[in-house]
């Protein structure tokens, strides 16, 4: 089969096709949409759907082919395929940037997640967005997002990664503000964009630092050919980065913090829920937000050089995990709960990276993509069914009306809560085990607590939405219906993935082969405290412990929110202050508003605009230039008499002066 394919196309071409397919979709749909707007016709839904869904699926298929190819590599030979640079993108004296792809184990896993989950969500969107005005525009943006995301994960240089990084940021902005007629939603898009920019500043500075460190080091030119941002080059010369490793890693991590919504830059993610739900599922849960994780994993060889940076990553992740989990406990908006859950889970991934368990982080990234996408899509299904209702206090008992959604949602919740044998159990357990085993007991404690809270708030959600008695009026209740097949089928596929997706990473202790770990290992740098395989007993004990801990919270949540609905109110009354603190998300947004946003606006308006711009630049710069021109003009017009002979006269005077200079110097 593979031989047949490679008879006609080279692997390199195939690799490019992965990116090219969604790009083609984006362009075609975009043009379609633009033409429709220009010439006032209704964009064809069939055309848009076939292109918008078909091309990502093609992309997925191509990724699978390449994956199969790489799997088939003989033992010992590193299954890496770097496609040759397509073209030189920018070249200066000391820097050359080529446009090339790098397909190795890590990027391929990412590409599979992106195209696989992405394609499913595209399919789902055909149902969810069926009645929307901007159908073609939506798919154009979504395809464009896929393009950039693939570029991000497949790019062979930091610059290309950054292109994808910014590109997905742009698409995120476009899609959050997809319904831009609503000022709040447009505001949310803006907020996401600006907060991300803060992180990107750090990212850029980190890149510059890498360049200065490498370009200033007088390296053999034939080995790097000025491609200082190429991953291979950076890796090859990483020793030269040692002195600057800590600032570089921290700055790059700032970018990751922004993109992956970690403390303190997580504030945009909950607001990003303003976009269509499939967008939340794809971008703000499954793919884009994991870009930071991918970046840190990709540059693992850099991070291991700076233990301090690793500490920072780990602690940031752990605190975010717990902090977001506590906020998630009391949220009443179904998507907000999931948003905070996403932040929390991303925290776990960073924790894994921070303690050096890179493959565990990627493993969790993968399982998380499955179940979080499923959760969001399930939530979308519910919202769709309820006609846009998002408040979980007004739901309940939906199990009766939409069984498929309900049970897939339960599977996903079990997965995220870490219930055996669903996907999340293995990945989360791997993180916890590596944290514990790496000697980070305090981190482990925080993560362990967070894991319990995760189980609690997830089943609180399940309980409040799908179980118990319905609270809505009968008329409305009768309208609730199961989602169309296009959506339901996606839910089921993802449910299967959430259930079994973790099995490729079953550790040796539990009788598995830890395939993912094996597969990814060559990509990552070895951390200082190498994990030995051997203490299987401890590992099993830990796993059982965390399972019991999660189950305990599941049951607790179940009891409280499905059976004893009066308990939460009573608890809130008793812990009034704490309740208000958590319910209002620790007033973080307000604090930011007070400390940063308002001073910034004040300075901009009063000083930068009122004084700098109007007084200085306008008066001296803009108008001043004009006035200077007028003055000069008057002087110069004196010379333009219109009498050619005078011009020649002056010309001759000049010639005489020159000859004078030559004769009598």
């Amino acid at each position, binding site marked *: 089969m593979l031989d047949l394919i490679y008879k006609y196309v080279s692997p390199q071409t195939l690799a490019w096709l992965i990116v090219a397919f969604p790009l083609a979709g984006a362009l075609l749909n975009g043009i379609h949409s633009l033409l429709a707007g220009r010439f006032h016709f209704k964009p064809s839904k069939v055309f848009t759907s076939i292109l918008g869904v078909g091309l990502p699926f093609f992309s997925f298929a191509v990724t699978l082919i390449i994956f199969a190819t790489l799997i088939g590599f003989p033992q010992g030979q590193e299954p890496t395929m770097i496609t040759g640079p397509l073209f030189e993108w920018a070249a200066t004296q000391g820097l050359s940037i080529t446009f090339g792809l790098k397909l190795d184990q890590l990027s391929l896993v990412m590409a599979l997640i992106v195209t696989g989950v992405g394609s499913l969500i595209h399919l789902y969107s055909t149902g969810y967005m069926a009645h929307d005005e901007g159908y073609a525009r939506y798919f154009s943006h979504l395809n464009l997002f896929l393009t950039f995301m693939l570029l991000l994960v497949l790019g062979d240089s930091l610059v290309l990664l950054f292109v994808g990084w910014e590109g997905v940021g742009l698409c995120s902005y476009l899609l959050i503000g997809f319904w831009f007629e609503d000022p709040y939603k447009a505001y949310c898009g803006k907020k996401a964009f600006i907060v991300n920019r803060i992180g990107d500043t750090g990212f850029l500075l980190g890149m510059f630092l890498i360049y200065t460190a490498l370009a200033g080091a007088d390296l053999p030119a034939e080995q790097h050919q000025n491609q200082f941002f190429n991953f291979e080059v950076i890796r090859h010369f990483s020793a030269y980065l040692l002195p600057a490793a800590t600032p570089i890693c921290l700055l790059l991590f700032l970018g990751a913090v922004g993109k992956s919504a970690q403390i303190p830059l997580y504030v945009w993610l909950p607001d990003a829920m303003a976009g269509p739900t499939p967008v939340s599922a794809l971008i703000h849960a499954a793919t884009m937000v994991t870009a930071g994780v991918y970046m840190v994993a990709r540059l693992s060889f850099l991070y291991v050089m700076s233990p301090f940076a690793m500490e920072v990553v780990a602690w940031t992740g752990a605190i975010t995990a717990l902090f977001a989990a506590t906020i998630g406990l009391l949220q009443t908006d179904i998507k907000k709960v999931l948003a905070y859950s996403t932040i929390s889970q991303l925290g776990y991934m960073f924790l894994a990276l921070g303690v050096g368990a890179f493959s565990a982080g990627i493993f969790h990234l993968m399982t998380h993509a499955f179940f979080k996408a499923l959760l969001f899509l399930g939530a979308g299904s519910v919202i769709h069914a309820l006609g846009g209702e998002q408040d979980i206090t007004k739901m309940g008992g939906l199990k009766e009306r939409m069984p498929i959604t309900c049970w897939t949602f339960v599977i996903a919740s079990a997965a995220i809560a870490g219930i055996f044998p669903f996907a999340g159990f293995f990945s989360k357990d791997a993180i916890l085990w590596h944290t514990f085993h790496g000697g980070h007991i305090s981190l482990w404690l925080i993560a362990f607590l967070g894991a319990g809270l995760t189980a609690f708030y997830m089943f609180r959600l399940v309980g409040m939405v799908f179980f118990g008695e319905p609270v809505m009026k009968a008329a409305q209740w009768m309208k609730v219906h199961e989602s169309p097949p296009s959506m339901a089928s996606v839910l089921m596929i993802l449910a299967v993935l959430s259930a079994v997706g973790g099995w490729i990473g079953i550790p040796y202790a539990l009788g598995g082969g830890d395939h993912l770990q094996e597969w990814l290992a060559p990509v990552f740098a070895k951390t200082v405290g190498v994990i030995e395989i051997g203490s299987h007993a401890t590992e099993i004990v830990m796993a059982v412990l965390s399972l019991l801990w999660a189950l305990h919270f599941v049951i607790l949540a179940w009891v409280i929110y499905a059976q004893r609905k009066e308990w939460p109110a009573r608890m809130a009354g008793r812990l009034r202050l704490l309740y208000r603190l958590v319910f209002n998300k620790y007033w973080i947004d307000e604090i930011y508003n007070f400390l940063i946003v308002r001073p910034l606006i004040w300075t901009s308006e009063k000083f930068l605009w009122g004084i700098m711009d109007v007084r200085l630049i306008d008066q001296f710069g803009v108008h001043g230039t004009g006035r200077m021109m007028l003055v000069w003009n008057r002087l*110069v*017009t*004196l*010379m*333009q*008499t*219109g*009498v*050619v*002979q005078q011009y*020649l*006269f002056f010309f*001759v005077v000049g010639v005489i002066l020159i000859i004078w200079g030559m004769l009598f110097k």
Partner: protein
Amino acid sequence: MITLNHYLILAALLFCIGIFGVIVRRNILIILMSIELMLSAVNLVFIAFSRYLGGLDGHVWVFMVLTVAAAEAAVGLGIIVAVFRNKETVYVDEVKELKG
């Protein structure tokens, strides 16, 4: 014996006479003729150097200059006729439309 310097001085003289014509005369036709004279003086330098150096490149450039002179005369006379049609004069001091 006649040397290159003789030719150069002769060309300089003729060129300056051309300049004199351009500066002093009011009749635009004569100004144009003076310019042709200047061009010819330059041609003389070209030819003299070409002869001195033994190459024919100077001849080629004279050829180019002649082409330019012909084009200049055609366009210049066209302008003069047009100006005369509008202003009934060929004196440059009476045509000052381009005054700043």
